[in-house]
């Protein structure tokens, strides 16, 4: 069985280290916050201008002046701070964010990512994604291995207009964990019920199976 969205988020949470400042994109990345072990001290950054984002509010705590980058109402944690969007992106571009996790339509062997526009279709805009992939110390993509038509989203070369060039470090999909290396995709973990060969057969780009490749641990 391929991983559920929650399981992908759970696996990515293992990449979060104590003391990290992390920016989470919309979708599966948002779920990662639910699986970060409570004993780790982690600050979540929201690019509209919050460091130290807390859980969603109770009804009595709802404040229209306090929303995250997904425009959802949030709370703040102890040690939080507010700042302008210019300061926020100085933080992002300046390499002060340890990790960003975001979704993608396609990634490729070179570590390129496309996640904002499909030619001929309505463009909603890139938001902060281009700044995040250009500036965060580590970029992890959370996505399904294949699109709705069953086409591999891990491509030899991205066919869609890029969001960023040579910027992705790792991809976690419903089938496995893939590192981007100078030799292309390297499968380092596979979903418990999926064989490495199966992941390979469902990947368009060049992929090798790491000699240390093991089943993902999800408990």
């Amino acid at each position, binding site marked *: 069985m391929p991983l559920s969205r929650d399981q992908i988020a759970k696996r990515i949470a293992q990449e979060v280290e104590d003391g990290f400042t992390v920016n989470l994109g919309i979708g599966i990345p948002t779920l990662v916050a639910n699986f970060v072990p409570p004993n780790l001290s982690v600050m979540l950054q929201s690019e*509209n*201008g919050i460091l130290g984002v807390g859980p969603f509010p109770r009804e009595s705590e709802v404040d229209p002046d306090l929303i995250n980058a997904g425009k959802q*109402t949030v709370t703040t944690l102890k040690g939080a701070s507010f700042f302008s969007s*210019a300061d926020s992106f100085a933080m992002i571009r300046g390499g002060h964010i340890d990790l960003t996790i975001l979704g993608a339509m396609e990634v490729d062997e070179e570590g390129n990512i496309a996640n904002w526009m499909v030619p001929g279709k*309505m463009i909603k805009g890139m*938001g902060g994604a281009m*700044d995040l992939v250009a500036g965060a110390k580590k970029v992890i993509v959370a996505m399904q291995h294949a699109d709705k038509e069953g086409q591999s989203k891990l491509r030899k070369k991205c066919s869609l207009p890029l969001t960023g060039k040579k910027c992705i470090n790792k991809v976690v999909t419903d089938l496995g964990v893939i590192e981007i290396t100078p030799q292309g995709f390297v499968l380092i973990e596979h979903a418990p019920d999926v064989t490495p060969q199966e992941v390979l057969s469902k990947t368009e780009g060049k992929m090798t199976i790491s000699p240390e490749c093991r089943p993902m641990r999800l408990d």
Partner: protein
Amino acid sequence: MANKVFTDATAALNDVFDGATLVVGGFGLCGIPENSIQALLDKGVKGLTCVSNNAGVDEWGLGLLLKTRQIKKMVSSYVGENALFEQLYMKGELEVEFVPQGTLAERIRAGGAGIPAFYTPTGVGTPVADGKETRMIDGREYVLERGIKGDFALVKAWKGDTFGNLIFRKSARNFNPMAATAGRVTIAEVEELVPAGELDPDQIHTPGVYVQRIFQGRDYQKRIEQKTLSK
């Protein structure tokens, strides 16, 4: 001290003209200049270029001015919450310049700070860099982006004083401080206007030198786009 205080939005925005470029604060519907947008609606000025991270929703924020076709062009990073926007854009009735959010923030900041252009790593190798100058610096490629200035800047703060000093609240700060610096005329609306001297100088986010006009807004709705509660 020159008098910067206006009675309301209608008075403060009296000379906004057709075809003006407006730099507008706010993120989503958070921290938007509600009173000033209503005044533009009442005034009926047309052909506006709005530099704003988002374009509101169908019935609120800058979405109101899209509905009346008062906006000719949007300079934004994300417009996904607005169905009318999509319609106008696809029909070619609305011009849009998509700018990465951090680049937009910095372009406005630069415009207000006398920096005509700057190099950024954001957008290199993407359609955003098409036709722009690029340069290798210390082994990395950067793209040249221009600063932005507006004929007017419309900002919303929590508290302000009669000199134009502003204090924002929580994440309603967002694009407002940069926008305030980038207007040839900056118009600030505040929830509470106090006499100069009442705000602690150590707590001011935007010094009054950037603000030419200020008024106390009224009837703030502060709509929430995605009210999300803990389970």
